[in-house]
Structures are given as structure tokens and as C-alpha cells.
């Protein structure tokens, strides 16, 4: 039976963060009942066309899924378990925002079946939290982490670094504190200016500057060093975990396995009888719900992905992983050999420069290669 990872998008937040380009919306009143009903319907719709699947993970992402009622989360998990064959050790993650956390809700999610939380801490420094427009303070963030560790078997949290004027020493300091709070997984992202965000406008106006590529590289190297001291290793460019503690759901993306995405703005890659399809749902929550109510699904795009494009996508996801791309799995998935998908001259140049390694089993980017992956992909991928 083919595996499936299930992504469920909750498109609401209490406020819009100035750096964020996720599909999130602020509403005076969130129409919980309507949203849950629509999610259930869309889940059933997707299950009907996917057929029997081994469900390996569920991920409640956002937006801010910790604004969902625990009871609603329970209903969706139950639905998913009923529609698919859940693996015994299925990973069920929920993204949580420190602002909306209290002990009661966390227990509710655990009782609903959530066995992993990912908390959007972003920083442990007040000035940075203010700059990032976050509504919580460091104390709340630490409290949420500690609570999460008590309640859930697995927990991770996110930090954003390489912020304006952040020095190497400051970051090492903050990161050490974070590592002492962490369990066995952390997501550590360098701040990215996304087009269309408030930060994009302010950055263009010159209100602040980001570290240049050299400082960015030094910060990245320092991050790896510090994390390693606590036994967390970068299994993906921005994700650090102890062995076995990797996010299985996110691994499904990077390994380019099938994943279904439901909810406003969710994307999916699903194998149907006539090939691999890219799916996309309408971004606006109310329009999406309308569509689901009328047609069973809020899908606005269902495009077949050609083998060549599958190969491209598999490459640009797979090389983000420390372990790289399994050549046999690549060929099985895309129907193409890796050599048909990459430029041989560039491969040779990247191997010589120490950016890529390749043997009979896998193609992977070295630590130096992963740091420059966008440029590597630009020359490598055909």
C-alpha cells in the first residue's frame, strides 16, 4: 500500500507577523464550525480518490492551528484514521503559538491524538520578538516549551536568526539557551524577506539590512556547532534533531513522497491513477469553504506533474537533506535516472568544488554544498 502524509491547514492567526507569507488571515470571529465541517468534507473527498493508503503522519499547520478547538482536532484525527490505514506509530504534529497556549488546551490536543508539537518561539530575546512583531514574550515562550515537554512525547520549536544587526556572539548565546530548553528537535531558520510582506516594504526602503552572505554563512556554521554540542544534527538545511527524532512528516516532503493537503491554500502531491498531480486549494478561507460546500473540494489547481518536473522537484527537495537522494527511490518515483535530470558538467564541477558527493547509492550535498544549495541547484538541475 502506498504511503501518505496528510497536511491540514488552519488559516487563522491572532495577528499577522510582518515577515510571514504563509496563508494566514485575521478574523474578529473564526467560523470554527463551518471550517471544521468543510475540512471533514474535503478530507473525505481526498480519501475517496486516493483509495487505501498507509497514513504515516498528520500535520496541523498554519496559520495558528493552536487556535483550533481540541475537540475539533480530535474529530479530524478520528476521520483520518477511519479513512486511511494509520501506521501504529503515526506521527501527529500540531503547530502551536506561545500566545494561545495553556495547560488545558495542550492536554486536550494530546488527548485528541496529537503526539508532537512544534512551537513558534522565534526568539528568546525581547527586542527581537518586538522586531518580529510577535505577541508573546520570552517568558511565555519558555513556559510553553516547558509545558509542551511535560505533556507531549515529542516537541520541537522554531527560532528565526540572522536578524538585522545580530552578532555571532549574541546568537550563540541565545541558541545555547534555546538548546538547553530543547528536547530532541529544533527548526532554526535564517530570516528571509518574503515578497509582499511588511518586511519586504521596509527592507526595500532601507529601514534595516540583513547580514551579508559571509556573516550569514558564519551564523549558519555557528548554529551547526552549537546544536551538535547538544547532540542535535542538521538532517535538513534548517532542521536539527537527535537520531530518530526527525520530523517524519516533513521528511515526506523532502523525500518527495505523496502528501495530501487540505484546507485553504494547502498544496499536495498525490499519485492518482493517471499520474502524479500537484493540487492547490483556494487561499481565501471563506471562498475555499464555499467551494467545498458546493463541490466537495476547494481545489483550484490540479496539474499533472511531468516526469521531468518530478525529477526537478525531487532534486530541489531531496538535496536539502543531509542524507541526500536515494538513487533507487528517485528512479522509482520519477521514472527517470538521476543522470537524465542533472547537468553532468555542473555535477563534475560541484563534486570537484566539494559541494556534492555521489556514489552508486545516493547523490547528496555536502555541508558546504547545502549552504549554497540554491546556486548549486541553479546549475545542476536541467
Amino acid at each position, binding site marked *: 500500500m502506498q504511503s501518505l502524509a496528510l497536511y491540514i491547514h488552519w488559516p487563522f492567526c491572532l495577528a499577522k507577523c510582518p515577515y510571514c507569507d504563509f496563508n494566514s488571515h485575521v478574523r474578529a470571529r473564526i467560523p470554527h464550525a463551518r471550517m471544521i465541517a468543510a475540512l471533514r468534507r474535503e478530507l473525505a473527498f481526498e480519501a475517496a480518490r486516493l483509495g487505501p493508503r498507509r497514513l504515516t503522519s498528520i500535520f496541523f*499547520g498554519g496559520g495558528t492551528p493552536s487556535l483550533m478547538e481540541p475537540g475539533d482536532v480530535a474529530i479530524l484525527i478520528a476521520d483520518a484514521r477511519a479513512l486511511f490505514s494509520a501506521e501504529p506509530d503515526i506521527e501527529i504534529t500540531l503547530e502551536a503559538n506561545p500566545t494561545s497556549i495553556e495547560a488545558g488546551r495542550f492536554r486536550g490536543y494530546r488527548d485528541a491524538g496529537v503526539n508532537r508539537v512544534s512551537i513558534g518561539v522565534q526568539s528568546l530575546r525581547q527586542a527581537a520578538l518586538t522586531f518580529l512583531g510577535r505577541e508573546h514574550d520570552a517568558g511565555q515562550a519558555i513556559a510553553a516549551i516547558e509545558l509542551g515537554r511535560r505533556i507531549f512525547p515529542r516537541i520541537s520549536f522554531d527560532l528565526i536568526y540572522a536578524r538585522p544587526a545580530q552578532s555571532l556572539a549574541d546568537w550563540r548565546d541565545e541558541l545555547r539557551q534555546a538548546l538547553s530548553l530543547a528536547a530532541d528537535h529544533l527548526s532554526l531558520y535564517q530570516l*528571509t524577506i518574503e515578497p509582499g510582506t511588511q518586511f519586504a516594504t521596509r527592507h526595500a526602503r532601507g529601514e534595516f539590512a540583513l547580514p551579508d552572505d559571509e556573516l550569514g554563512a558564519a551564523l549558519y556554521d555557528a548554529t551547526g556547532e552549537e546544536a551538535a554540542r547538544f547532540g542535535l544534527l542538521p538532517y535538513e*538545511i534548517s532542521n536539527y534533531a537527535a537520531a530518530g527524532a526527525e520530523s517524519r512528516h516533513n521528511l515526506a516532503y523532502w523525500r518527495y513522497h505523496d502528501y495530501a493537503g487540505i484546507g485553504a491554500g494547502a498544496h499536495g502531491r498525490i499519485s492518482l491513477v493517471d499520474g502524479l498531480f500537484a493540487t492547490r486549494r483556494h487561499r481565501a478561507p471563506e471562498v475555499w469553504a464555499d467551494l467545498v460546500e458546493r463541490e466537495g473540494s476547494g481545489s483550484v489547481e490540479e496539474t499533472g506533474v511531468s516526469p521531468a518536473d518530478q525529477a526537478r*522537484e525531487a532534486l530541489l*527537495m531531496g538535496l536539502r537533506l543531509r542524507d541526500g537522494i536515494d538513487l533507487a527511490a528517485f528512479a522509482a518515483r520519477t521514472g527517470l535516472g538521476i543522470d537524465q535530470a542533472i547537468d553532468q558538467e555542473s555535477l563534475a564541477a560541484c563534486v570537484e568544488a566539494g559541494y556534492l558527493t555521489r556514489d552508486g547509492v545516493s547523490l547528496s550535498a555536502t555541508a558546504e554544498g547545502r549552504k*549554497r*544549495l*540554491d546556486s548549486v541547484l541553479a546549475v545542476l538541475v536541467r
Partner: protein
Amino acid sequence: MSNTPTSHIRNFSIIAHIDHGKSTLADRLIQLTGGLTAREMTEQVLDNMDIEKERGITIKAQTVRLTYKALDGETYILNLMDTPGHVDFAYEVSRSLAACEGSLLVVDASQGVEAQTLANVYQAIDAHHEIVPVLNKIDLPAADVPRVKQQIEDVIGLDASDAVEISAKTGLNIPAVLEALVTRLPAPSGDPDAPLKALLIDSWYDQYLGVIALVRVKDGRLKRGQRIRMMATGASHPVEQVGVFTPKMVAMDDLGPGEMGYITAAIKTVADCKVGDTITDDRNPATDMLPGFKPSVPVVWCGLFPIDADDFEKLRDSLGKLRLNDASFHYEAETSAALGFGYRCGFLGLLHLEIIQERLTREFDLDLIATAPSVVYRIHRTNGATEELHNPADMPDGSVIDHIDEPWIKASIMVPDDHLGAVLTLCNERRGQQVDLTYVGTRAMAVYRLPLNEVVFDFYDRLKSISRGYASFDYAMDGYEEGDLVRISILVNMEPVDALSFIAHRSVAETRGRSICGKLKDLIPKQLFKIAIQAAIGGRVIARETISALSKDVTAKCYGGDISRKRKLLDKQKEGKKRMRQFGKVEIPQTAFLAALKMDA
């Protein structure tokens, strides 16, 4: 028949140094004779190209037919040709002179005689013109009429006692210019009954009308419907339209001896239309041709390449059309390892080069890359063979070269006393040899011999800045001489970039090599791989710079929803690469090329 007897026709060119007011005087003449209404009039109305308007200079000569009722009560046809003043457009002047019997020599009364005044007036004398001196800008407080008259007599040797004193700007005394044209210039001669002989002065391409030719009839008549033959090319066509510019295009039935105007004749191939050719009647042809024009000899060459390789055909067509309108510009196909297919183009000077490039961009919507300008060298091989070198990239290996000759010029520089020192220093730095140094009042005239190579390299700009704009410059080619010349190659990651190589005198080779390496280092963005930039003479590296590899370039977060976006981004990046030039593993953005090739030391 509307034809005017030759006794009532006057053909004249307006010649002067740059900015002495030729086009402004043309404005006043057009206005006073009623060619355009006040509403239709703009400043320098004949400068109709955008480039001319923006830069305030004339590039193309223009012809206008004026109708003037003189004091003697008779009506005259005056054919005016406004010419450019800049030395790079001298070919325009010489062709205009060949079509006229007289010239108005305009001299700015506040500036006096300048380098280009002399150059142009000597051309007019050679063309056996009657010359009427006109002192312009007498409205300016700095105008010094007696001094400038004296100058005209002393320096040029023309009688200036009858010079017409005007202000083209305010319109002062313009009627006297019209009268002088009628009374002092000779009428053209010509036999209306002889077989047709007309001089093809200029041509251009019109989107709607096709090729338009500007002609001056010498003998016979040129009529609509008549079948004409181009004597040099042999092409024959029926004339579709005959007309004149007033300056508006006005159709006529025919043109007789002494008259100037345009024809259209469904000329499809641009190559059929060669300026200087003689147009005759196909059935009743003339036996001998008019003298025509001396072909222009380009002194500066550079490569022009389309930024988008798909534009090569468009570039070829555009060059053909532009050449129709500018016979002083030459081109031949060229291939560069770095830049692909393009053309090696020859120009009369750097301003000419700049203008052509700009016209190609504007009028033909082409994105071009130009290589560094180079002069024409003569290579003498050890086996006794001699060849001309237009392109530094083609320079043969040093072992087969016996010696290299480079072109020299004789430059006349006129400059106020107080800037003379700086000008002499500049000339000496550029390997100049002083030939003469004379004074006219407080202005010095320095005559120098200079290697053209040194002038191509940033000379005008320096001259202008050290003299605060007061120096004027004219030059003529002055033979070839052996020079200690070397080719400097630029290598990117050990691969020579042909388009960046250049030839220089050994004494400055290192400085220039270092300068271009330094520039490239600043211009080429960091990339995935380390980049070594070197300048070398033969196998010897004279300068080097290294651009370190990019330290970090990776998307921080990438989950399921980002896959499509990432893939599109990748596609866009691939598209963007089209605008880069690939050198092994290195990509050089076009912008870096353009800037590096400017070579402004």
C-alpha cells in the same frame, strides 16, 4: 510646370563649429520665409531625432526648400542644408557641400574661430564654394565683432568686411542673411534638356514609404512615373513620388536642374541605394557619372553583439537600414567566443560610435553589447606579409609579428591661454609630438601629432574636463608609424575572454590591465565557484584579482507548499541566465561587460 529657372535658385550649406548656431539660424530662415507657422515651429526644428534634441547637437544634415521674395521683387527658391558641427559627422558636411554652390560660415561672435570652423571652411573652399561669413550671437555681452572679423581674415584668409552680423536667437538681422544669399551666392547651372543626372545625397528608411532618397538634380528632369537607373549599382526603378521638404514633405510633379528634393521608388533592397551614386533616366541614360563622394574611412572599430542571441537577424536588418541613413558607418560579420554572433562596426569617431549604438537601441529596439573601441593596426609579419587588424582578438601570435604600425592623427586644439598648460601635459602623456603652437589673441592653437589609439582611450573627456569645456578639437589622419604595442588579454578562470582583449602601448599596458581587472572584480557578483580574473600579455600575467565563492545562498525554509514556487523560481533563474555570458563555470552579467568595456580608466 512649377519649375524655377536656375537663375532663381540658390543652394547653400550652413557650416560652423559645434554649437555656433547653425540649426538656430536655420529655424529663423524657415520662419521668416513662412516654411512653418509660429505654432509649428520648435527650437532647432530640423534636429528631429530624439537623440539630437536631447543632446542639443545636429547629427544628420537636413535639407529645406525655402521660397523667398527678395528686395529685387523676384521670388527665389533657396535650398538650405543644415549640417552637423562635430568632427565625427564630417561626412555629412562633405556630402552637403557637394550638393551646393555656396556656404554660410557661421561663427559665434563670443567664441571666435574654432577647430571645426577651420576644418569645415577648408572643405567648402575645396568644393569651390562662395562663402558668406555670418557672425552669430551678437546679442551676447561677450560678443566681440571686430576681434572675430579680424580672426576670420587672419586665420582663414576670408574677407570679413561684409560679414553679416546677426543673432539667430533673437532674430536680429536675419533678412540681411536672405538678401546675401540671393545677391552673393552663384546660381546653379544645368541643362534641362540633357539626359537626367542627379546626385544621390542621402537616403533613409521610412516605415511607410520605404526607402527615401534625397537628390540634387544637375541636368535634365526627374519626374514622377519616370523609370530611373542608379548608375553605380545598375538598379532601376519607376519613381513613385517626387517632392521637397519645406520642411514638411510636399509632393511635386518633377524637379529640374539646380533643384533638391526627395524621391521614393519602391526600392526594396537597401543595397540598391548608395549615396554618391548618379541617378539617370533608364531609357535615355547619361554617359558619364557625377564625381560622387570619397568613401569614408572608419577610424574606430568595435564589435556589436545582440544581448539576446535570437536578435541577430534583427541586428543585421537594422544595421542595413541604419547604414542607408549613414554611409560613414561600416560593418562586417564577426563571431566572438564570448559574445556569439555579431558585427564588427567601423565609425568616424567615438561620438559617432556612441550615437549609432544609441540609435540601434532606440530606433530598432535592440539590446546590444559593444566591445572596447579599437583603431586599425597594420601587422607586419615576419614572412613579409602585411595585414590590417580591426579586432584585437584577431591579433596573431607575437612570434610571427615583425612589427606593428599604428595610425597617428594630426590634432588641432584651440584653447584659451590659461588652460594651455594642462592641454599640453595631456598631449605629452598620450605620446603626443608638438608640431606647432601659435596664438590668436588670447587663444592658443596647439597642433600635435598623436597616436589615434591614445585618443580613442578617453581623450575627449579628459580634454573637456581639464579645459572646463573651452578647448576645441579637430583632427585628420596622419599616416602610420611603428609602435611598441602589445595585446592585453583578459582571462576569466584561465579562459581568455576575446571581447575584452585590447591593444595598448607597452608603457601603459600594466596600468590598464590592472584597472580592468579591478573593475571586473567589482562588477561580477560572487558566484558558486571562485573566479580568477587575470590580465596577460602573451603568457605573462600582469594583473590578477580573485572573486571568492559565494559563502551562502540557500532558501531557509522549504515545505510542501513551497515546491511549486521553488520550481518556478528555478525556471526563472534559468531564464535569467540567458542574459549572462558563460565562461566555463563563470557567468558574467551583461551589465558587467558594458561597464568594463567603457574603459574610462
